[in-house]
């Protein structure tokens, strides 16, 4: 149980530098288990050992003293995964250049962000902390686990998750760089140009180092080329080491990027927002691109007027692996409502709707072998609800990460802040948050979000 005394205890026990992740043992009894990938099991137990799901079945035996959670009458589902958020990071946009692939939001994790606890209170155990959309190629994103209560920022890192990187098309990079600074890109054509240039630079850079490595075998005195973190990252994308996560709205720009990627032989991509994805769903499916969308959020700026709440359904029915994301510290608390909307708009089945916030985002982030469903051997990231999670009346009861209870509706104290600023004024409510969203850190220049 996460009590305050626990925080005070870990103050002196946390270990730095890729410290071991805390993991727990427990058994959840008699719940209705929504496995997502293997159907729904009634009156079923889940045994957790060392943070992993050890067994799923009826009347399982657990070692003496293992914590028991009575889930009779409750619904047990895999922890929700948000494929697009900006919680738990202190820097979102390095908006000083249109191309900044070298920066990593994983360097700015904020373990004290109360937003993480709020996400846990909505059953979300993993999120994809993304760089913002100010730059055509923004920074590398970080998949994090919501290990709220740990003091060490590195303990939030989802160790096995592959690297991901933010691209952004359309109005945001044009506004920041073209209109704001008078540099390329000033138009959608310009966005394509700077992305192609960056890939080309990556190729040239890669070539330079390949020649150096080959030449060094003959001549050990060969001087190394100048190291460039920016183009090294572009080379890593070209080598398939990083999954592109591209902020996009319009169908034309989505097709444009697919063409660019074909030219450079890059295959791994998930489009984010992708409000006009329904227009190019077959093309996305043919490429193998995935899509992470809002359920019904649009018209907040010109390029997002042509949208539909049927987007997720149309993409799903066309064979595109689709997820629903929050991009918001508020929406992240009820992604299960967002998924449920696809039953009203498109009539997705229960498991299809729930897949949008569990196994599908896991696939998009490359972590589907670890999380996203309730299966033996997977991480014990589990959310327990009072009713079916797609019911509007359901209330999250408990959220478990790696077998440890990180949210407990009944037993958590009211004030869950970890660090309290001794000089702040007494708040009327705590954690009055900054604006979460793609355009944070740029608001002094332009106030649009997303």
């Amino acid at each position: 149980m996460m009590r305050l005394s626990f925080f005070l205890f870990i103050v002196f026990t946390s270990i730095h530098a890729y410290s071991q992740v805390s993991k727990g043992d427990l058994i959840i009894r008699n719940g209705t288990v929504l496995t997502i990938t293997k159907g729904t099991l009634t009156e079923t137990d889940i045994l957790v050992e060392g943070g992993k799901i050890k067994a799923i079945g009826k009347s399982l035996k657990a070692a003496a003293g293992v914590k028991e959670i009575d889930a009779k009458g409750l619904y047990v589902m895999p922890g929700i995964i948000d494929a697009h958020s900006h919680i738990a990071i202190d820097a979102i946009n390095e908006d000083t250049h249109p191309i900044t692939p070298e920066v990593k939001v994983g360097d700015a994790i904020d373990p004290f962000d109360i937003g993480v606890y709020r996400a846990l209170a909505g059953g979300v155990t993993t999120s994809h902390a993304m760089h913002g959309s100010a730059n055509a190629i923004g920074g590398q994103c970080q998949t994090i686990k919501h290990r709220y209560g740990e003091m060490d920022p590195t303990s939030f890192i989802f160790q096995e998750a592959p690297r991901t990187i933010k691209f952004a098309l359309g109005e945001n990079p044009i506004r920041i760089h073209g209109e704001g600074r008078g540099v390329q890109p000033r138009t959608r054509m310009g966005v394509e140009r700077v992305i192609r240039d960056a890939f080309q630079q990556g190729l040239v850079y890669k070539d330079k180092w390949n020649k150096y490595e080959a030449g060094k075998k003959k001549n050990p005195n060969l001087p190394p080329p100048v190291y460039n973190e920016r183009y090294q990252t572009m080379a890593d994308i070209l080598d398939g080491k990083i999954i592109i996560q591209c902020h996009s709205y319009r169908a034309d720009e989505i097709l444009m990027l697919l063409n660019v990627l074909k030219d450079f032989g890059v295959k791994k991509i998930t489009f984010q927002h992708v409000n006009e994805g329904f227009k190019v769903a077959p093309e996305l499916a043919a490429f193998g691109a995935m899509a992470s969308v809002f359920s019904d959020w649009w018209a907040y700026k010109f390029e997002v007027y042509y949208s539909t709440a049927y987007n997720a359904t149309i993409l799903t029915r066309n064979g595109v692996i689709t997820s629903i994301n929050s991009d918001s510290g508020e929406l992240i608390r009820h992604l299960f409502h967002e998924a449920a909307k696809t039953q009203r708009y498109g009539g997705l089945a229960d498991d299809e709707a729930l897949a949008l916030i569990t196994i599908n985002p896991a696939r998009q982030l490359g972590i589907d072998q670890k999380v996203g469903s309730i299966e033996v051997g997977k991480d014990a990231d589990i959310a327990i609800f009072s009713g079916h999670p797609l019911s509007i009346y359901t209330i999250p009861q408990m959220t478990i990460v790696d077998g440890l209870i990180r949210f407990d509706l009944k037993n958590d104290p009211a004030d869950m802040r970890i660090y309290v600023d001794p000089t702040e004024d007494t708040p009327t409510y705590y954690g009055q948050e900054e604006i979460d969203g793609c355009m944070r850190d740029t608001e002094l220049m332009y106030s649009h979000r997303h």
Partner: protein
Amino acid sequence: MLRKLGMSLSCCFALFSISIGQPVLDDLPRVTSSIAIVNVKLVSAPGKTPQVSTVVIKDGVITQTGQNISIPDDAYRIDGDSLFAYPAFIDAFSRTGIKEQESSGGSGMQTHPGGRPQRPAVDAEGNPSLTDAGITPFISVRSSIDAKDKSIADWRAQGFAIAHVVPDGKMIPGKGALLVLTGKNVDELMWKEDVSLFSQWSGAGNSYPATMIGMMAKWRELYHNASNNVIHEAVYTNATLVSRPNYNQAHEALMPVVQKQMPVFFRAPAVKDISRAMTLQHDLGMRMVIADAQQAWHMANEFKSGSIPLILSLDLPDDKSESKKEKEEKEKPVSVPPPDSLKTIAGEKAVQDPEKEAFEKRRNESLREHRAQAANLAKEKIPFSFGTRSIKTTDFNKYILLMIDQGLSPDQALSALTTQPAKLLGIEKYAGTIETGKMGNIILSNKPIFEKEASIRFMIVEGDLYEYDIKEKKKKAPKTGDESLDVIAGTWSYAIETPDQKREGTFEFKIDGEEIAGKIKSNDITSGNEDLENIVFESDDLSFTFDFEINGQIVELEFNLTVKDESFDGTVTVGEMGTFSITGTRIMKPQQ
């Protein structure tokens, strides 16, 4: 305060027309280069009990200590009967001696009031010059030292003899130096140059790198290239047919860091700052010192092995709750109840909100944790030094005493100001204790040094003697019509000279017993807050602060005035934007 010994000595030793201590005339030699402190209660090192001893210093070096030692004929004698002697303090992380105007600009970029710096030329934003990027590891702090800067005398008066000073700037401001806090010019102050590289999490505003993530990426790239440079230079020296290495001023300057000859002093106040600096250290492997730490107790385990030395900030957060409560209570009888508060109108005491109470409790707990940082780390046996970089001289004593209140022993405090920093800076052979052969750096105080009533009577810095008057403590009981406070009561007009224009307004001071309440009125102030805070008036010096709101950001204005009859002059420091001169006159006295 500081009295030059010149006058008094020319009376004592009428034969000589010159003096010891700071010479009255710059080019005249001292009377003698020997000082003997006779029968002083000597604490030669932290942890030692006071023992009556005599200490002799000659030519800046301690030549003898002990009892019954022969005092050289030419020694200037200080009667130590009523005095305690301590090794003078060493400031592990400091900006002592840096010219005041240096603090405003840094790299020469203009700043918007309360906002981001003004933008450089468009092309330069994404790929700025090293200077605009705040990456200047090639700069030595020496160029910004002014031997006549007030801070040198001020910190010396607090007991400091040696300071490790690092330059102002952004992400990598430059290289630090060791100063001995006595001397007429920079060469005399300078002990060792380029002893450290200074880095901090301070972005380049509108230029790259602007954010934490940009700075982390940039550090990695710089280090990587400096490492390549080291290899390339070696090959270029030792082999033939090798092309000349690329020259980059920053990479060149970082080579001693890569070669682990120069430690990086990383300013990391908050726990996240520390953790990110440590991530860099972990990834790159440089020698690192965590400096200016204000929340290091969260990371205690990281410092246990001692491989990353720790310098604690002497800064402590203000106790907001107390000052707020006092203010509220004072305002109670006169304040008009707000119309929406029915309870107050009914004259009932407002019921405390339990949620608010819980918030208050946690905030107080957090405040206590900050104050107990040093004590808790000492309990964990984690070695640390103190650095003054983020505090004002006037807060030094107050904050040390608050830390001692929370369980830091005076011995632990003394070691964090003497032997620990000496070890950290590699000067333990020369400084940190009072022993034969060490530099003649001694504090003489009237009481044990960290007692509340203690004050420094003499400072000896490398054999130079400075004498201080004991400030008379203000009497507690308020006298009716206390004259000293009436001097400032009433309304004053003021004018601040800023580069672009003159700013004018009025101050109003009301005296109630020993309490001074003040208000500021000006067309420049639109936020509604007019209250002056932290008002202190002693002899002729009046100081106070005001939270000024510019574009939604609070900037603290710090006023330091000297009052003479019906007028004052002095300075006002506007956050980090600079210090400006201010003058004023009294236009109205309070009605009797």
